[in-house]
């Protein structure tokens, strides 16, 4: 779910791309400073801090569009009446002294379905006589609607949707920095600078404090607002003034924004095992298949077994999961997508990578559900699946919702695995991600944690707390994620 809260912490700066340039193929990918720190988040509109509000008409338009879209696309939508009543009740909560029950009465007594949204608009306007609604109230209302729907509901405004699209495409544009807030200086701080990014090339250093961005003084400005200043189209230039903490020297830079693809697939060898290679995948983006092909080309001829490590692959939308399956499986049925009117078989295309290798796919409780779904189809294909039973629920889920919401305490997946699709809302209202169907396995069954296929890799201990130092195996860099004991179990030795 979209997190409107602005927090000091680790935020990767994302800016809107327009026209990407061809990247230097030698330095095509950047290794992220610490992949687990790549917590992608939506920047806030600053509603809680600045109290941004929108016109009632615009809010009505958005909310009615959301209701219509849910009604026409969701696998199991509530009635429009129900949704309209919930919307009104939620908005009423933002108005002190208003009674939700009284306000929703007209909606609940309206008998003509075609009038529902007309009545809703009237009631909203009555609720907000000054003609303005806070943006936070609108977002909270949509979030509330999502809580009533199987699979949830995630709304992104047009700009955020474009950013998410860039992320999923591994084509985000930026200057390559991680930022936070320095509470002492009350200014933005560059926590780290990505190697090969334009900020690093310009001379920005880790822990530099930004005194101004594009001529705007950053003192006491909300983080979200400063992030917005750093955004811009590809090849546009951002002017930054910085100083090192404790120094009075101000350095000025003009830094172009460029595409910075992030390496998501890591090829590693295993000590004393030249016949084994490990491909660790951090997140499933559009570049994954390309990275897998490149990794395959680099495999030594001694390698007979390839372990595809998906234990940390928390982010994957359905489309990228399908592309990944396409690359690994040759003309295989993955299962079904069931919608209210039909049940559609999902298959992979001819051809696959790693054709002459023994392939073992390892998943865990943190693996994205769509990837769990495709591993269940691997049973009959010769690809082995291992279930690493370690519960690593202490890791924060990504706050950019590219997968259905999952409680971190659930070992694997919810009974219903929704097929989340992105629907572009008309009228430049952004994108809505909602469940248009549910995924079933090849036998038309719901994916259940109780009967997942695969060889279990039981660990000698279970890590319960995120700060447990034994959790380091996952906090380590990709090349160190397999201890010898686990490796033997994965290989079935």
């Amino acid at each position, binding site marked *: 779910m979209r997190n409107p809260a602005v927090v000091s912490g680790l935020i990767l700066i994302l800016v809107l791309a*327009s*026209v*990407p*340039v*061809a*990247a230097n*193929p*030698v330095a*095509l990918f950047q290794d992220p400073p610490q992949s687990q720190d790549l917590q992608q988040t939506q920047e806030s509109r600053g509603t809680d801090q600045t109290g941004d509000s929108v016109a009632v008409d615009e809010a009505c338009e958005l909310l009615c569009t959301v209701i219509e879209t849910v009604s026409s696309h969701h696998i199991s939508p509530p009635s429009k009446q129900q949704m309209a009543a919930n919307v009104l009740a939620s908005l009423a909560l933002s108005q002190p002294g208003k009674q939700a029950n009284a306000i929703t009465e007209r909606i609940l007594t309206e008998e003509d379905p075609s009038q529902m949204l007309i009545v809703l608009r009237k009631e909203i306007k009555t609720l907000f006589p000054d003609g303005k609604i806070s943006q936070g109230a609108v977002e909270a209302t949509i979030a509330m609607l999502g809580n009533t729907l199987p699979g949830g509901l995630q709304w992104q405004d047009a700009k955020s949707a474009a950013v998410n*699209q860039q992320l*999923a*495409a*591994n*084509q985000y544009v930026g200057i390559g920095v991680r930022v936070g807030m320095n509470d002492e200086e009350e200014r933005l701080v560059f926590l780290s600078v990505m190697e090969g990014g334009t900020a690093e090339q310009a001379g920005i250093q880790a822990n530099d404090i930004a005194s101004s961005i594009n001529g705007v003084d950053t003192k006491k400005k909300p983080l979200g607002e400063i992030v917005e200043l750093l955004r811009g189209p590809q090849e546009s230039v951002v002017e930054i003034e910085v100083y090192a903490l404790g120094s009075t020297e101000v350095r000025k830079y003009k830094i172009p924004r460029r595409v910075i693809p992030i390496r998501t697939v890591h090829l590693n060898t295993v000590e004393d095992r030249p016949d084994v290679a490990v491909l660790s995948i951090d997140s499933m*983006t*559009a*570049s994954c*298949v*390309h990275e897998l*092909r*490149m990794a395959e*080309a680099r495999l030594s001829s001694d390698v007979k077994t390839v372990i595809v490590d998906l234990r940390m692959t928390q982010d994957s939308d359905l*489309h990228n999961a*399908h*592309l990944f399956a*396409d690359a690994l499986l*040759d003309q295989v049925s993955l299962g079904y997508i069931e*919608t209210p*009117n*039909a049940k*559609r078989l999902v298959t*992979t*295309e*001819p*051809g696959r990578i790693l*054709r002459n290798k023994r392939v073992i796919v390892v998943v865990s409780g943190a693996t994205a559900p769509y990837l769990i779904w495709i591993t269940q189809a691997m049973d009959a294909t010769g690809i082995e699946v291992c279930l690493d039973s370690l519960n690593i629920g202490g890791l924060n889920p990504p706050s950019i919702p590219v997968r259905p919401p999952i409680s971190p305490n659930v070992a694997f997946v919810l009974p219903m695995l929704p097929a989340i*699709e992105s*629907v*572009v809302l008309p009228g430049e209202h952004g994108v809505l991600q909602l469940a248009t169907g549910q995924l079933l396995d090849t036998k038309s069954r719901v994916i259940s944690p109780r009967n997942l296929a695969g060889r279990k890799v039981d660990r000698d201990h279970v890590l319960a707390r995120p700060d447990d130092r034994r959790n380091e195996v996952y906090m380590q860099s990709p090349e160190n994620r397999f201890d010898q004991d686990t490796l033997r179990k994965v290989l079935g030795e």
Partner: protein
Amino acid sequence: MLIEVLTRLLMTCLTLLCLQNSGAQAQDPADLCFHRPGGIAILDHPRRAIISNESSGTITFVPLADVNLAAATQSSKLAESLLDVAAVPGNQQVLVATANPSAVLRVDVKGDSAVVTARYPLGSVPTRIAVTQSGRFAVVSSMWAKSIDIICLSEYAYSTPGKQKDSVQRINLPFAPREVLPLDNDFAVVFDGFGGEFAVVNLNSETATEKTDTLNTSSPILFFNRFQGHHIGGVFFDESSDEILITHQILSRTAQTSRGDLHWGTLMQNVVRRLPRSSLLHHDTNFDETGSVIMVGSIGRGAADLAGIVVADRTIVTASSGTNQLIAAATSDSASKAIQTGTFPDRIARISDSMIIVTNKLDNTVQVFRSDLRQMVRQFGRPPQSLTDKQLGERAFFDASLSHDGWMSCASCHVHGHTPDLKADTKGDGHYGAPKRIPSLLGVYQTAPFGWIGNQPTLEQQLRQTLTTTMHGDSLDRARPENTAETTDEYLATHIKRLANYLGTLDVTEAHTGRVGDGALKAAGHALSAGQSLFNSAGCRKCHDPDLYYTSPVRVDVGVEDEWGNREFNPPSLRHLHLRRAFFHDGRFTSLEELLEKHPQPAAELTSEQRTLLIDFLLRRGTDHR
């Protein structure tokens, strides 16, 4: 005086040396001797390249002994149009495939003269011609007619003109053949012009059964097979590795035409497929598990529409006609080398281990390159000074700079202006997730509205939608000439207009398809009339109006829906149905028989006999309407 002569001689030598080193063109007395150059045949004694010219009907001789000093010369006109040329081994002869009339000409080449010594009439316009190493057989493909002709070239027919020992055998195929590759002296492999099918053809029934595990020895077609892919651009037999090399594309039906999937090479791959020669002679070979595939182009540098291919000095060189490059295909990205060519490099031939020659179809030039692609050695011909709107539109159609990073052109999906009947997941219907069959563009100009759901009223609007949401043509900004006053949007609009005009010229004639003419139609009048009557009475014309190119400007619910629940579709045109291999928006039907039998909302119940009559009418009628 002597000093003066020696000085002049020295200056001439120095000039020639400079010209050679700069790759500049020596004074070519026949500067305009190429007219849409296509096929290349290499003859020895003396060694020269014979180039066929599509629009002048001539052949051009390019001496190869000393490329830097050579002058190209042109023959007299042999036919209205020459589409391909092949050398007859061991002779100073070539075979040329001609249009208007459709025929193969046997031509004696002596010096700069070309004398036609035999003519083999064909039933339809030929596309490619190839000759076996023995010189005994020629195989001619006629793509739009879905047939091949096998010509037995007798050594006696030449010396005894009255004795017709040469024979021409026509074979119909279930796909539209284009590239032809003779294998040994007894077989030829004929490749699909649109999809990934091929047929192994027996040229010599006496010895064929000894060499293959063929299924059917009574037919010249031994078997069919296929590999994943479409738009086969060129084939080559590499003797050193005993492999067949095939250039083609692979369109993923899973990928979306999103910028991300296009950028990372997931949507469209341009590849060289390497198949062991022996594998082609076994009917049950799984070609998706046999051989290997080399991806050409890389992230940031697509290599759309691979065409001709050749191996020289152990280097595989292929032409990317969409990006106007020759590329050395390599198994690792860092090793691939590329060099710019003229517009639309098409066919390549090996001159020697160190040199190759390539024809650039759309700018009337032929270029010689070092096979390591470090340098262009010589260019023959020169590009036209000005281009008509149609020519500009044609260039745009094949221009991959209209797509992000040059991964594809319009021709990549709308192969030869038609369709491989594959599905692509575009945003034509407003969202991804409902891939739809690529429509044919033949006669498209007359079939408004456009798009499967008929949401684009004009062709220009459809083109704009395609260029922005399917091809993501951000390269336009870089391709826009610096000295133009046009904005990027105006530049795009100019391209769109040219493209639309060009699409208006796309069609195939009866000469191409070899379909029956009016006389034969009348002779078969009874059966045809019954089929036509059925078409009208069964209600087909309500959606497929003959007066509107067998379509109509409406959206119709025919009882099917796509993955997003869309139930209304604009009826596609029924022209050129014989060239189609899948029907309905999702290609669910692969034959007209299946379609009529299982149509979810048939206008009328038809008996089996009625369906036969209707299909006969549909398959014959489609090309008659202009």
